[in-house]
């Protein structure tokens, strides 16, 4: 019997080689793999010559893929196995396919689907607020609801949070996103190739390098474009700089939320110093413009390398001292420890990835499991912390900050030469597929690029780590004081735009 087959991370695959299973076999095998510890990397629908199809990528110790024809309705996989839940909702919204028996069939981003079929959610998209959905409600005398957003009090992205509370205690938090939806996946399939890098860099600006790498690797794999070692090293440095800036910013923000202001301000400033190192490298604080198919558009000449090294040497002790300040403060520990716990079991069911997953004991890290760029030559330590609380999520970041500094220092201690990429988009071969994964600072980013029989993009599927992790935040808030929401929210610090696309 044909089954899911192993695929490489970022390899060119002929679409004909992906097993096209009968739906029932597809469903049974997928359930079997995930129930036995496999995780869902991608599960999406696409149209191919008038036929609607599914493609699924799973991971165990290896990546594997299979596809099938998509039925108009089908018995939901989620009803038997939770990790499919958001993927099935997304497919229902994008293509109007109904998963029967889905326990929580709710829109994901509030947008019209692309086929001429009735909307699964009975929404009217000609309305400014198309939502037709009753939030979960808890009944009872002392129950009250708190609604927050989409416009929040701070300088942050929009989203809606609905708390059902008894007194100060949160019984249930429901998160509704979609306000940032810009139609990115549809655009990727329609625009001229020259816009592809710009679009991928702007899916989530704080993960510019993560998404940019996924796109570049997919295109390089399909078009057989070789990337020289220097470019791989520069890309690795850029991804680690992105991790550093964000982790340091998050640790500062966590201190702000427990009113420990000195490290909040120091890390606020030091985060900027790391953003400036991305600017040093490529002229943009978020790394926009650096990664292109074929390599990088800016080299790491000796002058830049020396400046980078000098700055890291200067910043490293400052970072270490501020970390000491945070983690030796008993007041910080008192607030972090035991707050917003997500058990390893729950994290597994939800499919948490990245630091949020590692803080709940799931050691998965793309840099170790499916290394790209220069990670195969680097020692990336495992960072699992079993306690699953805010403290664990802070500890993972602390460890990763120190590790990233080491990694960058080890990469810039000798000259790095690369031929600067032209930025020209190569032509893609027909009927091919490439799936790419990278460990961005929030966790596993994955892109899947499918071409049609003329080599045009048939489907471009994007998955930001936040797609997995938002439900982790909702779970962390269960039975937690509502005043601890900001702290928990910062400890996950998820992307709205990366989710909304």
């Amino acid at each position, binding site marked *: 019997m044909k089954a899911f087959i192993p695929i490489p991370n970022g390899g060119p695959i002929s679409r004909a080689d992906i097993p096209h299973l009968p739906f029932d076999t597809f469903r049974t095998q997928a359930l079997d793999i995930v129930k036995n510890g496999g995780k869902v990397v991608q599960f999406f629908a696409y149209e191919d010559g008038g036929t609607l199809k599914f493609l699924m990528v799973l991971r165990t110790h290896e990546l594997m893929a299979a596809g099938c024809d998509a039925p108009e309705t089908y018995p939901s996989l989620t009803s038997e196995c939770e990790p499919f839940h958001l993927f099935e909702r997304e497919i229902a919204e994008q293509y109007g396919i109904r998963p029967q028996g889905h326990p929580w069939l709710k829109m994901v981003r*509030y*947008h019209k689907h692309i086929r001429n079929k009735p909307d699964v959610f009975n929404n009217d998209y000609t309305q*400014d*607020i*198309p939502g037709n959905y009753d939030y979960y409600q808890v009944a009872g005398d002392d129950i009250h609801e708190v609604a927050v957003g*989409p*416009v929040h*009090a*701070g*300088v*942050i*992205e*929009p989203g809606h949070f609905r708390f059902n509370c008894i007194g100060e205690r949160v019984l249930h938090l429901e998160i509704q996103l*979609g*306000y*940032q*939806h*810009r*139609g*990115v996946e549809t*655009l990727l399939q*329609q*625009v001229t190739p*020259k816009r592809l*890098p*710009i*679009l991928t860099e*702007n899916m*989530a*600006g*704080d993960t*510019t390098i993560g998404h940019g790498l996924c796109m570049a690797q997919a295109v390089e794999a399909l078009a057989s474009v070789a990337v020289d070692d220097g470019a791989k090293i520069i890309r690795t440095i850029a991804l680690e700089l992105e991790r550093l800036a964000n982790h340091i910013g998050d640790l500062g923000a966590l201190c702000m939320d427990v009113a420990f202001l*000195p*490290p909040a*301000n*120091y890390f*606020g*400033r030091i985060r*900027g110093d790391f*953003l*400036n190192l991305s*600017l*040093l*490298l*490529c*002229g*943009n*604080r*978020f790394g*926009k*413009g650096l990664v292109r198919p074929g390599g990088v558009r*800016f080299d790491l000449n000796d002058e*830049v390398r020396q*400046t980078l090294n000098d700055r890291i040497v200067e910043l490293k002790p*400052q970072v270490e*001292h501020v970390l000491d*300040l945070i983690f*030796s403060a008993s007041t910080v520990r008192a607030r972090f420890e035991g707050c917003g716990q997500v058990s390893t079991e729950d994290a597994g069911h939800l499919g948490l990835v990245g630091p949020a997953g590692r803080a709940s004991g799931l050691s998965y890290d793309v840099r170790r499991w499916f290394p790209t760029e220069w990670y195969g030559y680097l020692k990336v330590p495992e960072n699992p912390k079993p306690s699953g609380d805010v403290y664990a999520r802070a500890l993972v970041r602390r460890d990763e900050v120190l590790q990233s500094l080491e990694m960058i220092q080890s990469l810039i201690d000798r000259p790095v030469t690369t031929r600067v990429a032209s*930025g020209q988009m190569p032509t893609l071969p027909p009927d091919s597929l490439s799936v790419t994964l990278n460990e961005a600072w929030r966790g596993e980013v994955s892109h899947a690029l499918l071409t049609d029989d003329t080599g045009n993009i048939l489907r471009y599927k994007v998955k930001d780590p936040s797609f997995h992790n938002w439900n982790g935040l909702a779970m962390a808030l269960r039975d937690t004081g509502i005043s601890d929401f900001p702290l928990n929210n910062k400890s996950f610090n998820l992307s709205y*735009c990366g989710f909304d696309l």
Partner: protein
Amino acid sequence: MLSVLKNRFEQGYRTCNYPKEKPAVFPRYRGRPDINKDADPSVIQACADACPQDAIDVEKKRIDMGRCVFCGTCERISEKTFVSFTNDFEISAANRSDLMTDGTLPDLARHAKQHFKKLFGRSLQLRQVSAGGCNACEADLNVLATPFFDLARFGINFVASPRHADAIVVTGPVSRNMKTALLQTYEAVPEPRVVIAVGSCTITGGPFYGSPEIASGLESILPVDLFIPGCPPHPLTNLHGLLRFFK
């Protein structure tokens, strides 16, 4: 306690002296483009063809900084014979048309609405609305509160409620799902109110231009008083825009 004090001494004084002195930015930073009007027309055409944002007007030899994401493609293709990006981060404008630049920009302070200076010159409260986009503009507005920029020393703050605000600072291409919330926030700001558009998404849709899920520029929805271009604008660009427009 001792370690708090020790750290405080190590950190020292970090606030920049802008606008008295311009802080140095690393040389690869791409700010205001210098444009050579005498460049080879075929080179200009090649730049326009390669520009992912279609931001180059071949006839007028201008770049629309409202569309541009400062990726540097034109600089590279023309080998700096047509465009070279300078380190000048002071690129905000009071009129949309000023952003279609031949390499020069009018003085922002002279073009700003003078009554705003009188009203808000000493105290300016801003309400930020994130409406689509990628969160980079928000991030580089947020850093204005860090010690290096220290926005509050100019009497400018981001506030939590539109009722407390004098102006809204909009980022993102105004996604369909955020339009109502944006308009409601705008309505909640007491008059006279100022609208500030930050980033190429907000000004023209930026990288997402052409998508049916977004507006084609904030101006199609609200009257915009100040345009701060970039993808995202450098924090110093934001700071310059706010100071020159209101002070």
